[in-house]
């Protein structure tokens, strides 16, 4: 074992991390810092920012954009973009609402069909991009307009179709009971710790260098303490009128997002498909010469993106209790791209993680929510979010330079 340097200590591990940051591999650091700073500023400026009610509200506000961003990350990893993801969500949402409300379908087949609609849209885009060779920017710009048209036709001009299905509406409007919330936290936390321990044990058994146990314990403890704090805050009563309705617990949409996070992270980091995505994004020609079917990988990325957009469609519909021609429209797509990039995903491809969507999505939602509480207009909010996105993209570009590419 001549290659690796001697066993690291906590100090050298910190040093290594710092030198990685300096060389441009900053990961999610700006998003985490941004989140802390923004929360600090808004807490100081508005008394209603740091309240249990607003915290829960923030999560449900961010949910749709986060899921669109999670899908976009698959496409961004290739260095491509999907500008139509917002309206893919809208169209899928419209399919769901129309089947449930107008045709009285059960929500399960209706949801299946709406997700299938997302897959079809993604396959079409992916086919055009990878097999016909049209740049993704152009294809998805065209589809942005076309899907908007489909949504307009489905929803009827100026029309809004309401949805009353209990399950669909519950996703954005119901919460787990406090006991279930804690059970969920301890269950998920235990699984997280066990998988971390198992990974270290397996590597040690194979005679490989493992992550420093102290560092892992520190990181895991930190994450779990933050999550426990969040669960505690969400379990506080946040209803204005307790006699009328009691509001507490983790919003139902949170476990949904965590499930997508786990599955997506598994695909990206543990399967050969995920590895190939990174390879194509890093150097498509190298990937091709290594025998990777670059076209299929690209097609799949667009299919996944639109499929997750369909899931986001469900969330948007649930939140609004309806579908309208602007579902998934307005700033949705730009917020989602912003979320991914702010979270640390590179627009140049080859760099990004599923968790980037969550961190970045929270940053975007905090700006939107906090400035709303301070009484700023939508105009100011767009300008600030735009500037934050610009800074993130600038940091991304600069870190590429710093990385010596």
């Amino acid at each position, binding site marked *: 074992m001549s*290659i*690796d*340097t001697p066993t690291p200590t906590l100090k050298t591990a910190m040093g290594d991390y710092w030198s990685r940051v300096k060389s441009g591999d900053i990961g999610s650091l700006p998003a985490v810092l941004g989140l802390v700073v923004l929360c600090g500023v808004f807490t100081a400026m508005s008394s209603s920012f740091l309240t249990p009610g607003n915290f829960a509200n923030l999560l449900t506000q961010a949910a749709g954009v986060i899921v669109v961003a999670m899908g976009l990350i698959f496409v961004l990893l290739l260095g491509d973009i999907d500008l139509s993801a917002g309206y893919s969500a809208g169209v899928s949402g419209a399919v769901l609402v129309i089947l449930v409300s107008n045709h009285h379908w059960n929500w399960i087949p209706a949801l299946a069909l709406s997700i299938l609609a997302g897959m079809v849209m993604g396959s079409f885009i992916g086919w055009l991009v990878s097999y016909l060779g049209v740049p993704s920017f152009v294809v998805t710009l065209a589809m942005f307009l076309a899907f908007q048209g489909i949504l307009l036709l489905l929803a009827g001009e100026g029309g809004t179709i309401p949805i009353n299905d209990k399950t669909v509406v519950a996703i954005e409007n119901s919460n787990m009971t406090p006991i279930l919330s804690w059970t969920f936290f301890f269950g998920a936390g235990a699984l997280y710790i066990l998988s971390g321990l198992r990974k270290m044990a397996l590597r040690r058994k*194979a005679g490989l260098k493992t992550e420093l146990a102290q560092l892992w314990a520190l990181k895991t403890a930190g994450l779990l303490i933050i999550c426990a704090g969040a669960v505690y805050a969400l379990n506080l009563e946040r209803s204005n009128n307790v006699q009328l309705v009691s509001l507490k617990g983790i919003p139902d949409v949170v476990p949904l997002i965590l499930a997508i996070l786990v599955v997506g992270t598994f695909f990206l980091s543990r399967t*050969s498909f995920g*590895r190939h995505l990174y390879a194509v994004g890093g150097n498509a020609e190298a990937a091709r*010469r*290594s*025998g990777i079917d670059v076209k299929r990988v690209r097609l799949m990325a667009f299919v996944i993106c639109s499929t997750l957009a369909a899931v986001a469609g469900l969330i948007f519909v649930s939140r609004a209790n309806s579908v309208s021609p602007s579902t998934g429209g307005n700033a949705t797509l730009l917020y989602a791209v912003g979320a991914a990039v702010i979270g640390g995903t590179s627009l140049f491809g080859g760099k990004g993680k599923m968790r980037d969507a969550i961190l970045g999505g929270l940053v975007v939602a905090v700006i939107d929510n906090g400035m709303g509480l301070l009484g700023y207009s939508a105009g100011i909010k767009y300008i600030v979010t735009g500037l934050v996105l610009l800074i993130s993209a600038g940091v991304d570009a600069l870190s590429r330079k710093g990385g010596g590419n």
Partner: protein
Amino acid sequence: MSEAILSLRNINKSFGAVHVLRGVDLDIYPGQVTALVGDNGAGKSTLIKCIAGIYTPESGEYHFEGKPVSVNGPRDATALGIEVVYQDLALCDNLDIVHNMFLGREKKKGVTLDESNMELLARQTLDGLSVRTVKSIRQTVSSLSGGQRQTVAIARAVLWNNKVVILDEPTAALGVSQTEQVLHLVRRLADAGIAVVLISHNLTDVFEVADNVAALYLGTMAAQVKLSEVSTNQVIELITTGKSAGVTKTEANK
């Protein structure tokens, strides 16, 4: 001289009206370094892309281990045990050394990647080549020097027990000591019984490490001869004029 592991006969390849390869013959032997030389535009890159299955020649015979084979894509060449290490390296900067060495051929345990196994194998290969210059096998390729990248690319070719390894100008962008390291590595590959093809503009490198030399001139094979039978000047003549006194084309097929 032992039997050639790979023989090309009368290979022709055109791009539109440009006839790039005209009836090229080439023999590659196990345990030897065959240098492929020629001026810019002589067809060296096209020839190796034909060997690697990236281009399909219009006509010609492709023999591998004495049997005629058809190579219609990179996968066919890989299946035969032919690996090309390209000039532009074909490594993914954003992935680490282990990922790059197993790219496209990941070891799996069920549906998941078997990272431990891949890391062990990669490390064994690098140790076997006496590579001691990389700090961690898990660092990304973007943080490596030119020589280290070349080493990783060559190690990848070795990892798969390839029978033929083709190196496209491995020393073109390297400093003196790094060039020396890579040339040592090239020699070790041949000593391990691999048939190595070295494409190079640098005749010093060629004379230092190669056993025989094949010179291309304007898409034709000027000659393929043992290096011990020619002088530097004769090789230069072959490259620049396509012929040289005392070197006949028939020697290629000896």
